[in-house]
């Protein structure tokens, strides 16, 4: 395959960036999108140019590191895949592919296609955990919640924190991510003692990071590589109301 890439190059978060054109020839349709970038980078290094910096780690679609905005969509044109699991067969010979970093005030560009997503870490640190108290082991045969609820918690926990929801949201809102992290614990018995404190702390941190506000367009759910449901945002909204207007616990 022969391709034209338009890649966002930006030295650091202080300088302005721009799209730069690269021509690539003989790309195998079986390559992953990141492998195609590896080919590009090797060519750039051979020519003595600076390679394109991009985030990646497991390349198995489970770590949440890869983060390219491809032709106007996070993780490219296919549903339920991350950029590393996107293959060149999803494109046509002769295509022009525009690759940009996630764009949000809360995700400043570090270099080229790499953005700083530590805002997500700070949201998790604000309350996305359970405090484990010591004591005897629980009864192994105890079934404290129904299977359906456990499944919903599992589905929320599938969030890999890649930030595609923020990237695609027209408001750069992080509500799908934050609500998944809140829901996964709010649905489990272990999460109950801190449930209403957690939703307040995590939403407060989300607001402090400068993410936008949700307008229920549903773009996040459609683009999420893990299929996290909008139902989680509704649950977060409910829990937030309970916490603020009913619970006596404040943060």
């Amino acid at each position, binding site marked *: 395959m022969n391709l034209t890439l338009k890649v966002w190059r930006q030295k650091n978060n202080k300088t302005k960036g721009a799209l730069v054109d690269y021509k690539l020839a003989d790309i195998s349709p079986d390559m992953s999108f990141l492998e195609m970038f590896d080919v590009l980078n090797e060519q750039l290094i051979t020519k003595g140019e600076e390679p394109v910096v991009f985030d990646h780690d497991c390349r198995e679609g489970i770590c949440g590191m890869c983060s390219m905005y491809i032709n106007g969509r996070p993780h490219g044109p296919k549903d339920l895949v991350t950029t590393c699991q996107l293959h060149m067969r999803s494109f046509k010979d002769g295509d022009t592919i*525009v690759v940009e970093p996630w764009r949000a005030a809360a995700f400043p560009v570090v270099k080229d296609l790499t953005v700083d997503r530590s805002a997500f870490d700070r949201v998790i640190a604000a309350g996305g955990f359970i405090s484990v108290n010591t004591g005897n082991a629980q009864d192994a045969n105890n079934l404290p919640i129904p299977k359906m609820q456990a499944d919903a918690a599992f589905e929320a926990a599938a969030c890999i924190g890649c930030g595609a929801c923020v990237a695609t949201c027209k408001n750069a809102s992080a509500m799908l991510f934050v609500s998944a992290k809140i829901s996964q614990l709010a649905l489990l018995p272990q999460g109950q003692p801190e449930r209403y404190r957690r939703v307040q702390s995590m939403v407060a941190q989300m607001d402090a990071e400068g993410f*936008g506000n949700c307008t*229920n367009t549903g773009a996040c759910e459609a683009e999420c590589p893990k299929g996290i449901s909008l139902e989680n945002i509704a649950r977060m909204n409910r829990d937030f109301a309970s916490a603020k207007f009913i619970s006596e616990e404040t943060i």
Partner: protein
Amino acid sequence: MSGFGNALSSSIGRKYVMGITGIFLILFLIVHAGINSLIFLDDNGLKFNIGAHFMATNWIIRAGEYILFLGLLVHIYQAVNLTIQNRKARPEGYAVYNGSANSKWYSRSMGLLGTLLLIFLVIHLKDFWVVSRFTGIPTVDANGNEDLYAVMKEKFQDPVRVVAYVLLMISLCYHLLHGFASAFQTMGWNHSKYNGMIKRASVWYALIISIVFALMPIAVYTHLID
């Protein structure tokens, strides 16, 4: 920490404000469309004028009018506020943004649709509300009620106004299409047994309200009713 103020100034709190005022305005439109539909009885506006007279004189309705304006202003204020925040959340936009791949255009254009509705509202209030409350309705009907229907007939002789009203009802339709279901989601009323129902109700509500309103200027202009 002051609880409620803090809650309402958070991102989710602001959404509640949009949702609650939105639901309030949705309920208002049902009343408004219902009473205005009396013109379709084709009785030269007699029943409609009785309705209009009641709405103009009943003290509960008059008090409600203040709450309605307050709700509307809060809805607009919060929308502007949220839009500014959302713009700030993405200072540098994408070179290529394929929004249609993942969401409906009207769900991404609520600000634009709302602005069109605000412009409409200014014209609409000037056309009818200012006349009935302040400058006075010039004639009375056979029952001796102020003839608001005559004002309506006179205003809708102007084809430009009729076309503008109908076009803006299309933007109302799309605004409601997203707003109705969106309010439920914001309030946290998302439930697998009811989601389908809410979506369908949202489509029916938006269509019925906007078609009923759009038919009024059309019916008067074309003399389908007299």
